[in-house]
């Protein structure tokens, strides 16, 4: 840290403050480092795959930008303003920013306060480092490849010209008779060739080429494009003209702006709530923050294990519940895609009678209320703006398709039963509240299968899975006992494992639950994928997104 000579605070008793320029530089540097870390720019494998061009360009940019900023913002000079902790001076131009325990963070500019700044070289280095960080955040292999393509994009040879008109094709074949007439014509015995005269090929009347003509000057082509655009604006195919439409849009400007903001902010397009009495599997603050910061979980969920073992400990059932829900609703490996992660909210640790209370009393939970209101408001906005462009705007789904409430409660006394349905009134609409109870989850595979079935039945009304929808063969399926017996013989074990494709766990085959050796090599992908895809087709019939 550099301090101007003759202004030593210790000696003179003056107050000292950190220079605003230094604080800004350090703050920007820290922000850049954090952003780089969040964007995984410090991972060794990222650097391993990075093209040398990226580092070269980033380095060049950093030196240039850092030096320019350093020079033109005159960062080599001492800061006029400073920040310091302490009591606000009774005299001087100071403002208190934060105050705690009698001390406050003060920003100000006073000539008698020592301002401590970083040395100019350090400032320069910091800004070069910031420039390097910004460049590494913005530049990657793809960006460099795109930059590399820029010259070819502006290459005149890439402009599409109209093809030159093809010369008329002449008939190549001549009959023997025509050859005689031609000979007579040449000798002067006849004055015309008659039907043997070479006929020009019929020109096909095609569409008028509106691209640039080969001999068309740039300016003329540009003017013609502009005139076409203006014509397009004035006259449209059907419906009102562009100006009329613009007037209509002006009348609904707030709604349009709101709808655009909702789209740009990628707000949830539906609000489905699942209440369960299982505890929160991630009660720690850090896990919650990570969950909030995560944008789009598709890439992570695409690599979920097919059938994980339930973890030991109290969070095990909750994590299994989360996994099954993610597989059913979000895993993008299965089609069709029916929901995004933030659109289905799990309310952990809910009271066992939550669904009964939802049916009886008005919705009161502020978290649920906000989410539901947000989606319903967006729906109302969409309904308002849809008539402005009915051709392109999608149908607005009913409120019951985009908002739903479900409860899956674990109760040792529960018996397998169909979901109980209730209704909830909110905002002038009636929503279904569905509840299922099932025995607590245990570590065997059968428990996970039951969870899949119950959750599927809860989320998609009318869902059913049977022999007709299973991948298991209908005609030649061996009896369960025979299948179980086949695996008692050790010979040809690998080949025998193929028989498991006709033992769909979702259809029973409880004997498999007693064979962990077979469950470890069970072809889950065959039956699980089918189960999830059958579920999603059914789900899509009842629930949806904006």
């Amino acid at each position, binding site marked *: 840290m550099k301090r101007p000579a003759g202004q030593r605070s210790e000696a003179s008793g003056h107050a000292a403050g950190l220079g605003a320029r230094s604080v800004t530089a350090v703050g920007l540097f820290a922000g850049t480092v954090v952003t780089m870390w969040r964007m995984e720019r410090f991972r060794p494998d990222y650097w391993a795959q990075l093209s040398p061009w990226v580092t070269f360009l980033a380095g060049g940019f950093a030196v240039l930008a850092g030096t320019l900023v350093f020079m033109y913002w005159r960062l080599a000079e001492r800061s006029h303003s400073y920040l310091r902790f302490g009591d606000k001076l009774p005299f001087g131009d100071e403002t208190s920013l934060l105050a705690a325990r009698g001390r406050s963070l003060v920003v100000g500019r006073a000539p008698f306060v020592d301002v401590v700044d970083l040395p100019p070289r350090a400032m320069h280095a910091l800004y070069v480092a910031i420039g390097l960080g910004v460049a590494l955040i913005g530049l990657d292999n793809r960006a460099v490849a795109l930059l590399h393509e820029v010259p070819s994009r502006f290459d005149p040879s890439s402009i599409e010209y109209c093809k030159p008109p093809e010369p008329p094709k002449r008939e190549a074949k001549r009959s023997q008779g025509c050859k005689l007439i031609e000979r007579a014509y040449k000798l002067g015995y006849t004055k015309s060739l008659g039907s043997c005269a070479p006929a020009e090929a019929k020109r096909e009347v095609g569409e008028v080429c509106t691209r640039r003509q080969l001999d068309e000057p740039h300016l003329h082509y540009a003017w013609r494009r502009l005139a076409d655009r203006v014509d397009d604006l004035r006259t449209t195919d059907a419906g009102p003209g562009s100006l009329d439409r613009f007037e209509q849009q002006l009348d609904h400007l707030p709604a349009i702006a709101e709808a655009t903001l909702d789209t740009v902010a990628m707000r949830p397009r539906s609000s489905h709530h699942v209440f369960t009495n299982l505890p929160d599997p991630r009660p720690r603050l850090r896990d919650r923050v990570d969950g909030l910061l995560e944008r789009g979980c598709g890439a992570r969920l695409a*690599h*979920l*294990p*097919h*059938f*994980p073992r339930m973890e030991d400990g109290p969070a095990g059932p909750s994590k299994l519940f989360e996994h099954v829900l993610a597989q059913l609703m979000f895993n993008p490996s299965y089609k069709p895609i029916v929901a995004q992660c933030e659109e289905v909210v799990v309310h952990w640790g809910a009271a066992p009678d939550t669904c009964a209370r939802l049916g009886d009393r008005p919705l009161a939970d502020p978290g649920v209320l906000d989410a539901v209101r947000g989606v319903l408001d967006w729906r109302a906005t969409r309904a308002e703006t849809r008539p402005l462009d009915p051709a392109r705007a999608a149908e607005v789904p009913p409120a019951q398709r985009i908002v739903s409430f479900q409860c899956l409660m674990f109760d040792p006394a529960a018996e397998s039963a169909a979901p109980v349905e209730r209704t909830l009134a909110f905002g002038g609409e009636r929503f279904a509240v569905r509840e299922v109870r099932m025995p607590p989850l245990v570590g065997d595979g059968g428990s996970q299968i039951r969870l899949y079935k119950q959750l599927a039945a809860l989320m998609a009304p009318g869902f059913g899975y049977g022999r007709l929808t299973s991948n298991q*063969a209908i*005609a*030649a*399926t*061996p009896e369960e006992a025979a299948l179980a017996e086949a695996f*008692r*013989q*050790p*010979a*040809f*074990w*690998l*080949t*025998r*494992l*193929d*028989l498991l*494709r*006709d033992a769909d766990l979702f259809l029973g085959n409880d004997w498999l639950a*007693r*064979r*962990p*050796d*077979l469950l*470890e*090599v069970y*072809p*889950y*992908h*065959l039956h699980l*994928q089918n189960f999830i895809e059958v579920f999603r087709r059914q789900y899509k019939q009842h629930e949806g997104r904006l």
Partner: protein
Amino acid sequence: MRAVLVVLALCGVAHAEPRPARAAYIADLIEAIRGIDRAALANTRKYLQVVERNKCQAPEMTLRVGCLLEAASQNCKSLAGDARERCRRASDVIATNLLAERVFVPDDVRYQIMSKQRDARSAIARELHRRYAALVAELAMSEFFPGPRADTAALAAGIDGFCSDAAGTRDLSWQYCAAAIVWFVATDGATEETR
């Protein structure tokens, strides 16, 4: 002695620790293919291929598997002692690979090959070999690979771990993965032409 242990493991105590039992079985498969006479291995493979393409053609997988199992046991029945056991193990790998052909070379790739290549069967075999090689390369790059100097038991444990992981996250059955790697490793990556 080892064979007896594997049989016991797979028969009765499979519930206790499936993983070591599977690894021991894979090690035995590798040893069996390595130990079998080249000509006998080629004959067994040819026989099972012919049976699978003709007699065992069935729309239901269960029927195809049953038929192949029957054909393979009949083929090895005439042999005695260790030779029979080796024949059964090699047949197990060959039969599984035959059943897995449609997974490794899906119908669309098969049609492409058939429309472009005159000798489609050899081209499909080459493609299959290429896919086995890719799988083995994946194993070699994975955390499960015990190293190039590892013994058969360690390699078998690595194959089991790798295939369990692949079967748990990808659309590939454990036995297809294991059989493909076992075949490639035990035959030292030899193609059908050079075998």
